[in-house]
């Protein structure tokens, strides 16, 4: 048993824990000031702001879509249900780069809708709307997939009781269903947030990398690294890693509550 434990822990340390530790060390090895300065330049602040904007648009939209879709899939019967169910997973099977390419083929200069948007003076590719679309694409399945099993597990008894006692569908949803699935929704929201914060490939293809305009935090990490500014790359990474740590803690808290409920 000891050998197994050491193998498992050694693997995790070498692959994850120590590398992440080194990033923190490298960030501050030339002092806190340099790192602090690097993440507070106007370009850096804009990059973090843009990343938050992606989250604030993509996550609520996907949460609405996710809860509605999960309810349809678990509570209703309709034709094409299994097709819809399997299509939800598609974003997990698509490389982020392909997502970016797809958006260029739709909204780019020579894309399907390129002319229409150009005529109306709307820029999607190499601009924020394209980056938002890319982010929505990559984090679409999370809420559906977290809420669905919870809906299945709680069953329909309470909802039916509420309905026979005269509650309207809206009342039943707000008073019975939503409180029962809230931890699942929360977990899905956290996973979507993490993915939206960290998305790189899809956004990289459609952003055009204009520092201070279409550069998110993850794109900035690459830009700083390739511009031979390691402190810039490491310090932006540390900020992103701290956001990731916040995500982890929230996941942990939700998981514990879920276990208590179960």
């Amino acid at each position: 048993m000891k050998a197994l434990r050491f193998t498992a822990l050694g693997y995790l340390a070498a692959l994850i824990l120590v590398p992440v530790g080194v990033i923190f060390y490298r960030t501050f090895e030339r002092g806190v000031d340099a790192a602090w300065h690097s993440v507070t330049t106007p370009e850096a602040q804009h990059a973090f702001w843009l990343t938050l904007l992606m989250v604030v648009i993509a996550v609520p939209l996907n949460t609405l879509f996710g809860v509605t879709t999960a309810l349809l899939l678990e509570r209703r019967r309709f034709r094409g249900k299994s097709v819809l169910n399997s299509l939800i997973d598609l974003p997990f099977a698509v490389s982020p780069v392909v997502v970016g390419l797809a958006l260029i083929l739709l909204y780019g200069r020579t894309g399907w809708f390129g002319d229409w948007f150009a005529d109306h003076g709307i820029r999607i590719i190499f601009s924020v709307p394209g980056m938002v679309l890319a982010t929505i694409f990559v984090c679409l399945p999370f809420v559906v997939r977290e809420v669905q099993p919870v809906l299945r597990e709680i069953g329909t008894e309470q909802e039916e009781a509420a309905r026979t006692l005269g509650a309207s569908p809206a009342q039943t949803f707000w008073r019975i269903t939503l409180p029962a699935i809230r931890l699942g929704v929360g977990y899905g929201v956290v996973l979507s947030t993490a993915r939206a914060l960290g998305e790189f490939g899809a956004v990289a293809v459609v952003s055009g990398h204009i520092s201070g305009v279409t550069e998110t935090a993850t794109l900035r990490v690459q830009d700083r690294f390739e511009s031979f500014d390691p402190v810039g790359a490491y310090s932006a990474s540390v900020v992103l890693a701290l956001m990731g740590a916040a995500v982890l803690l929230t996941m942990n808290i939700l998981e514990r509550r879920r276990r208590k409920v179960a």
Partner: protein
Amino acid sequence: MASLPARPAIAARVPLAGGVVVLYLSVIVLLPLAAVTAKAFDGGLGEFWEQVTQPQAVAALKLTIGVSLIVTAINVVMGTLIAWVLVRDEFRGKGFVNMLIDLPFALPTIVAGLTLLALYGSRSPVGLNVAYTRVGLAMALLFVTLPFVVRAVQPTLQEVDRDMEEAAASLGAGPWTTFRRIVLPNLRPAIVAGSSLAFARALGEFGSVVLISGNLPYKTEVGSVYIFGQIENDNVTGAAAVSVVLLLAAVLLLAAAGRIGRR
């Protein structure tokens, strides 16, 4: 559901909600993927075939599949082992280790690549430089795919009835035999589910490999990086053709895994 009396209010809403859901999914996911597929076959099957059989594309696709297979195999072994240790072993700091498993989901992929490069790159404090090599590429993929098998196997292992194991042990089976003959068959569906997700993720991964692999054609350039390069070189048809191959591989794999999982 069916046993309830008719509910006209809801019945009227289902088509509306259903319509909105289908529209959203179409605009966000289906239409873009249709555009990629259409572009790939823009110049006919011949042009598609020519694009995917470009030597550099073939090398990238072969490397992608090969390294994804290796990474998945390592994940099967290490993921199951880690899940086993987390469920059956007791040690201090287990809660922390358990939380650490999800870190690759919480950490941006570009940061994952950079962290590996900081420890195993040219300025490596441990004297191990895997930057711009296939080993570095595999490590990046191992990092981002770590949670899949662990998180699939862990709950199953928690639920496994230990009576059978104890019976096997009392009848004289060694720990390895007990694991192989009793535990492993129970875990197989979870391992298949987790490892196919890991494989699909490895096929398309971009952010974590872009810094550490160095993107050397014929050596460390994987499919997603090749597609990115073709977009930048304005060979959109070539990019779309290779995209379709990757997409098809991932979709078929996940569908097959879904069938095995249901059995």
